């Protein structure tokens, strides 16, 4: 490796050391989630926002995938919906995260032996946090969100690289 590349690498490390906490702080305190209410777990978003007030943590739902950084998969994915679901995931800009909410998204849930269900959304997209429950209580959802915030806190190379 020649000297210029080495120096640029070192400079980047120094910049990252100061910039990462700032960018991660910004990212984890204003997570915008995608309005993808597939099934029952989506009913727990109401209390999540109304009673437990997720917005004080910066979490708010948005309609278009292009505005979001978080996709909460709240329900099972069927074979009919799978291609469109992948399209939604690809439309989200980097960096993006996925929470698999509820047993259906984690492994198929009570419909595990159905002919039309994909057993686990992690077969389609990479998942960062799994929130179990059928449905998970809003407190469990908040706990899942905090775990995601911890993950974002540890992210390296914040502002210029894509990917988790």
């Amino acid at each position, binding site marked *: 490796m020649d000297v210029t590349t080495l120096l640029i690498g070192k400079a980047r490390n120094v910049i990252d050391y100061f910039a990462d906490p700032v960018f991660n702080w910004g990212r984890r305190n204003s997570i915008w989630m*995608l*309005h*993808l*209410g*597939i*099934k*029952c777990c989506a*009913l*727990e978003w*109401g*209390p999540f926002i*109304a*009673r437990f007030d997720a917005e004080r943590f910066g979490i708010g*739902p948005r*309609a278009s*995938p292009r505005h979001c950084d978080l996709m909460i998969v709240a*329900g*099972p994915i*069927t074979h*009919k*919906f799978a291609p*469109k679901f992948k399209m*939604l995931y690809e439309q989200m800009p980097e960096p993006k995260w996925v929470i698999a909410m509820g047993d259906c998204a984690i492994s198929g849930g*009570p*419909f595990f*032996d*159905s*002919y*039309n*269900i994909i057993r686990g959304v992690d077969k389609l997209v990479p998942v960062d946090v799994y929130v179990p429950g*059928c*449905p998970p*209580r809003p407190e469990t959802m908040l706990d899942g969100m905090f775990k995601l915030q911890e993950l974002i806190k540890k992210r390296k190379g914040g502002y210029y690289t894509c990917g988790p």
Partner: protein
Amino acid sequence: MAEMWINMGPQHPATHGLWDLRIKVDGDMILDADPQIGYIHRGIEKLGENRNYTQFIPLADRTGYASPMTWAILYVLTVEELMDIKVPPRATYIRTIAFELQRMASHLLFVYGMAENVGAMWPPLVYAYRERELLLDLFQILTGARFHFNYPRIGGVKWDIPQTFEAQTKKALDVIESKLKEYERMFDESEIFLMRTKGVAVLRKEDAIRMGVTGPTLRACGVKEDLRKSEPYMCYSDFDFGIPTGKNGDLYDRWVVRIAEIRESAKIVRQALDRIPGGAVATKVPAAVVKSVTVLDGETGYEDLCVIMAKVPKVIKPPPGEAYVRVEDSRGESAMYIISDGTERPYRIKIRSPIFCTLSALKYMMRGARVADVPPIMEGIDILLSEVDR
């Protein structure tokens, strides 16, 4: 202007569920509608053939997630008709109370959705959720869960109502009834709401009956038809309640009918709590009950169980036959058709969902409406994709 087909969905914040609403538009005016469903089809009817009768109760809950208690009660009523089981009166009263509380919770969800879609956004939405949380807390002390209760059992209910239930229910009903007056003022005096709902999505009586529409949408068209009065099931014939109807069959009438139904349900719950047989509420949540649910007769602890559970065998094997039972769900007429072949798994379960039939009448409601009216129209029929797709 050019006519074209537009796809709204499957992911769309205003379509309330995962489906693809294809509408044919001429500019802003809708000419025709062709819904495409099946994005959350889990095959519950086929899964039922792979479960035994008791294992299907949680799946029945998940058929209609906004009112799971009504679907689970419908399922156990159908199996009890198959097996000709007489449910004890106290269990029937408990089921009726749970059914009506569920209807109220489901209609409050409708208020929340309607508020969001006509543009009232956050305040009414949050208020409706606040009231719904009171009901979900009641369900939590009764069954242990906020929704997907798994509470009715074939022959009765899982456990008796706890000591604090009656007082807390009456307090919650008082709060909800006073807040209903607030909602009526908020919406009936709002010119925007009236403009967006009066005369919009009119469904005529003849079209509604021809397409098989039932429930509040049919009652909003002026047809005074309610299964709780025309074919009473459980103990509805013991109670005094009214059937609200509308006049014009538009979106405003559907709103009015549902708000009135919350009041009527509260009336039924109060009457049921006052008249519940078996005397005062049980003084303990019997731990013995949970253990002895599968106990056959002759063993100890069964006497406690008799008030809330009929004598049923440990392994449920109905005799060969079939049963078709209909109930008045929050959204209309729900029905289940179960065929038994004498084994411990059902041979065929067929589920009739009220919204399935209402959705096929969508094109009559949408003609002449504008694209911006689509979300309120969807919420006006109180759409729930889970029971459509099953």
